[in-house]
């Protein structure tokens, strides 16, 4: 059996650890089998809405400036691990941001999955369909 979780990120980056921890915990779903019976799984996906979409901005120089991994780095790891990443189109439009402004893939480290810019209605459907919602 597979249980499905959706992490919904509304928080801005850096001011708190919220968005970073959402990503690192979502990624941890990949190693959950050691605790579960054979065939059981927990599958996590991630949606960015509202101010949360600003976490996806590319070229974050947090390592250069503060010596810490940028949120973008965790996002890239989640794509490398084939996780579903949804970014709300209406919120991007509100900020005037397009795909060109965002970290959309992990191509340079061998990832195959891309982040998906989707209408909010798609994210709402995902919220309906998963077993548990994890907001921040």
């Amino acid at each position, binding site marked *: 059996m597979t*249980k499905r979780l959706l992490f919904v990120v509304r928080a801005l980056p850096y001011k708190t650890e919220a968005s970073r921890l959402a990503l690192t915990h979502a990624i941890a779903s990949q190693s*959950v089998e050691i605790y579960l019976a054979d065939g059981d799984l927990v599958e996590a996906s991630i949606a960015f809405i509202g101010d949360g979409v600003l976490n996806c901005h590319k070229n974050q120089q947090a390592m250069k400036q503060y010596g810490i991994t940028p949120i973008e780095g965790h996002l890239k790891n989640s794509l490398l691990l084939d996780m579903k990443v949804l970014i709300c189109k209406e919120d991007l439009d509100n900020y005037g941001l397009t795909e060109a402004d965002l970290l959309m893939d992990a191509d340079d480290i061998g990832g195959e999955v891309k982040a998906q810019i989707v209408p909010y209605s798609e994210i709402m459907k995902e919220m309906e369909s998963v077993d548990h919602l994890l907001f*921040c």
Partner: protein
Amino acid sequence: MGKLTIGCFSSLVGSLSLDFAVKLSEAAVKKGHKVDFWLSGNATMLSKAGQKAFKDYSHLEKTVKELLTTGNFQITACEACAEARGYHKEDTLEGCKRHSMDWYLASTFDADRVLHMGGD
């Protein structure tokens, strides 16, 4: 009777969010439910042993210890979050476990409800 998994993340000591989560656990366990309690981010402060009880500050150690004796309550802190704050294994509150983040994800597998307190 059900199982509630609570994840408390960046909640400040000094806010009452951690207090909320502990009191909610207490009420749930009293009604016969099981509670798994995950501490990550700044909430790992709750896992630090030797906190002095001042009246100006929440002091949740006593309630946590009572909950642990019921057998229907588990509390686990994120190991990396704790180490990053200088809390080592020997500094951990008695009965509080330490694991990597997948413990929390695994706990949600058979949880009836998940309360994820992911912000402050």
